[in-house]
């Protein structure tokens, strides 16, 4: 009888075996699929990003023979940089290339091939070197965004417009310029040297980069010492009491509070109550330091915790006070971990934009900020602003700005990894 049941059990198990193995396989491949979903997205994302953004690092330039006429630039003897008609000079030069264009409206269309930045370029040239006055210079001046997009779309082939942004005549002229090799694609310096602009071909990320830099400066100056001090206290000195429990729970919760709530705090406290200036990197930095403080505290506590107690015991037994034990022996050993945590906190702060929207850092700001209280914006916010712009050329620049932002984040994270690898000891 016992024999019989064991065979039936065995048969039962064997009967179910293939089904169970199939289930096992299905489960396993579902897991594999899930893992690839995230990685696949990452791939699609980067391909899409670079596909869209790589072209923004290049810009189309038009070659013009600009006559730096003294009569126009320096009517009163001295060059008048504020009011001289540099625009007219550039336009004259362009018109010389197309003498057949005589009608007013047609001319206006022709001028639209050029960026308004062309005139600025001529002005800056004369300002730098007044000796050029009266000469004729061959200059590569930026083309307008629409021409730029047209050239980028055609990829070396003869141009053909499909977007409807340019008129038939304009496309024809661009074709002429292309044939005479008066067009070239060069490195887009404006992207890195200019502040924001309404003209896509003049818009740059320098203002945003400087804004982000000042903010991170404030953040690191405030958050790093404060975070480390808090971690030292909580880990080394705090008595096990209700209060330290509350602080602990509080810090963990603070790390998970939505960032936009920090923005509300900044708006209510720093701007409305303390009447600090709106849009200033100072306020942005203050908000971001509150935001990153929990991250730094948590990382620093982990770093302090990982220093073995034998170090403390050894120092104490040689007569060091508790403070000396911590500051002379524990802190130096925990420093790599603290630094890593700080860098990761900073990279989080660099990518943050929601709280900055609350404190007015979304304004359209052309000037590059020169200090902590100048109106500024930040790189992620610039991305948000550009992403909203309807022009196609801005979509390209948004992707380029994202590439730059991701580059910085990658650098910071690499630094963190290197510090961790090179300086951290395993006990």
């Amino acid at each position, binding site marked *: 009888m016992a024999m019989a049941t064991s065979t039936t059990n065995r048969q039962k*198990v064997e009967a179910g075996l293939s089904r169970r193995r199939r*289930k*096992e396989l299905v*489960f*396993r491949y*579902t*897991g*594999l699929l*899930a*893992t690839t*979903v*995230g*990685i696949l*997205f*990452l791939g699609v*994302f980067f391909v*899409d990003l670079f596909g869209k953004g790589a072209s923004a690092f290049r810009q189309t330039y038009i070659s013009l023979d600009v006559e730096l006429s003294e009569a126009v630039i320096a009517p009163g003897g001295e060059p008048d940089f504020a009011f001289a008609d540099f625009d007219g000079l550039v336009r004259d030069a362009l018109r010389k290339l197309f003498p057949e264009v005589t009608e007013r409206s047609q001319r206006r269309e022709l001028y639209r091939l050029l960026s308004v930045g062309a005139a600025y370029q001529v002005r800056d040239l004369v300002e730098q070197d007044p000796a050029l006055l009266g000469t004729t210079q061959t200059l590569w001046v930026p083309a307008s965004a629409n021409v730029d997009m047209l050239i980028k779309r055609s990829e070396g082939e003869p141009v053909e417009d499909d977007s409807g942004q340019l008129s038939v005549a304009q496309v024809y002229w661009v074709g002429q310029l292309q044939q005479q090799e008066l067009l070239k694609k060069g490195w887009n310096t404006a992207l890195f040297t200019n502040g924001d602009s309404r003209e896509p071909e003049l818009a740059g990320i320098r203002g945003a980069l400087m804004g982000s830099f000042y903010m991170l400066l404030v953040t690191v100056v405030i958050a790093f010492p*404060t975070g480390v*001090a*808090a971690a*030292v*206290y909580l880990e080394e*000195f*705090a008595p096990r009491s209700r209060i330290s429990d509350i*602080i602990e*729970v*509080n810090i963990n*919760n*603070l790390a*998970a*509070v*939505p*960032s*936009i*709530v*920090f923005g*509300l*705090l900044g708006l*209510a406290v720093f701007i*409305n*109550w*303390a009447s600090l200036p709106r849009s200033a990197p100072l306020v942005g930095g203050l908000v971001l330091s509150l935001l990153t*403080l929990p991250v730094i*505290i948590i990382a620093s506590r982990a770093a302090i915790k990982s220093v073995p107690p034998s170090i403390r015991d050894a120092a104490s037994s040689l007569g060091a*006070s508790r*403070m000396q034990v911590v500051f002379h022996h524990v802190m130096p050993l925990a420093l790599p971990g603290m630094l890593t945590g700080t860098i990761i906190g900073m*990279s989080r702060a660099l*990518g943050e*934009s*929601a709280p900055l*929207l*609350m404190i007015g850092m979304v304004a359209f700001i052309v000037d590059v900020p020169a200090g902590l209280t100048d109106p500024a914006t930040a790189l*992620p*916010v610039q*991305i*948000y602003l550009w*992403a909203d712009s309807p022009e196609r050329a801005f*979509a390209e620049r948004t992707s380029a700005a994202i590439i730059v*932002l*991701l580059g910085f984040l990658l650098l910071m994270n690499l630094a963190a990894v290197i510090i961790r690898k090179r300086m951290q000891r395993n006990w």
Partner: protein
Amino acid sequence: MENTTLILTVCLLGVAGFYLGRSRSLSVVGGFAAARNLHSLPGYYGYFTAIWCLLPALAVLTLWFVLEPRVVMALLVDSLPQAQQDLPPGQLNLLLNNVRNFAAGSAIGGETNQVLTDAAAVYLQLQARSRLLLTGLVLACAVLGGVIAWRRIHPEFRARNRVEGIVMLLLVAASSIAIFTTIGIVLSVLFEAVRFFGEVPISDFLFGTNWSPQTAIRADQVGSSGSFGAIPLFTGTLLITGIAMLVAVPVGLMTAIYLAEYSSRGVREIAKPLLELLAGIPTVVYGFFAALTIAPWVRRTGESLGFEVASESALAAGLVMGIMIIPLVSSLADDAIKAVPGSMRDGALGLGSTRSEAMTKVILPAALPGIVGGILLAVSRAIGETMIVVMAAGLAANLTANPFAAVTTVTVQIVTLLVGDQEFDSAKTLAAFALGLILFIVTLILNMAGLRVVRKYREQYE
């Protein structure tokens, strides 16, 4: 003196204080050879002097920054002619702003008049006086503090204990900042929210189904109270969060299971950093991707299948948000799975179960509390996420459960209500703080619960 120079000068005085204090401690005992007659190491006497040089001066400086603008403004108002003093607060503020801008030399709207130029002169004078006073006071504090500390130095003086006491105070202050931040958040949000509930009844806000703050510009407008019903925002938030969770939880969980149980070491070492990369991408970048790549794709796909899809559909925002949260779910699930003792898994395998059976019937049930805690944290993250929805979700408050429709969320509304120049005490801006309060409370509860469950569970097997 400029602020920067002033701070630098004070710092230099501090450094000088350190060296003076240190050398005095040595000279009172008669040279380096006799340093052991000192109570503390000579450096501590230096630190003591430096601290007393710096702390009072910096305290005065901070206090000045906080109080000075108010005092100057009050004095300025006093100096105005009576007619201007009696202006309503809004107009008075406008005038004061004009005075400040005029004094700074920048162009102002409106014409200049005698009152303005006079006030600007007074303002400049007040500022100059305040600056002079500040410089004098701060430097006096630094020097005086340093001298007093310096004079107290003698061999029996317990400098180390003093310095350590002050450092301890600083440490305590640093750790209490976290508490003050929380209090600051609660107070600032609560205060404005209460003002809002003074204008709009709390029940209308919580249970109203019509949200259109734009119509409530005038307080006496008919129906202005009815347009602050937040239910569509809550449902919109829930819809997008739900879609995000439908993506993130299964994918994140299966990823964690696969990496913990099946994958080879090599795969794990590549896949994990890649997933962390996903977590490191700023949300504004996800938002850009959602708005410009995923949303059009969702729309095209949906329309080719015969659905009517809004260009700012909840689906697109939710999908991208879900992908953003995958790493969070997978790392928390990974922690939970790793915390289950290996013996339980070995036991299950030893009894003949397949690996998937061991996982689903033994390990996952044991890890369930940890996973649930992780999911709570992920939900809180999704609810509070701002940039993706600001860029990819709609602005119109629709009460719908259709994932192809455009919905708006709490965070989107906070941003739209507060971005741009707003009068700060209109019901419209106050509504943003009321929404912020709700957001804070809900995420706080989720976080507390999530963290508690995760921690409690972790301790269970330790």
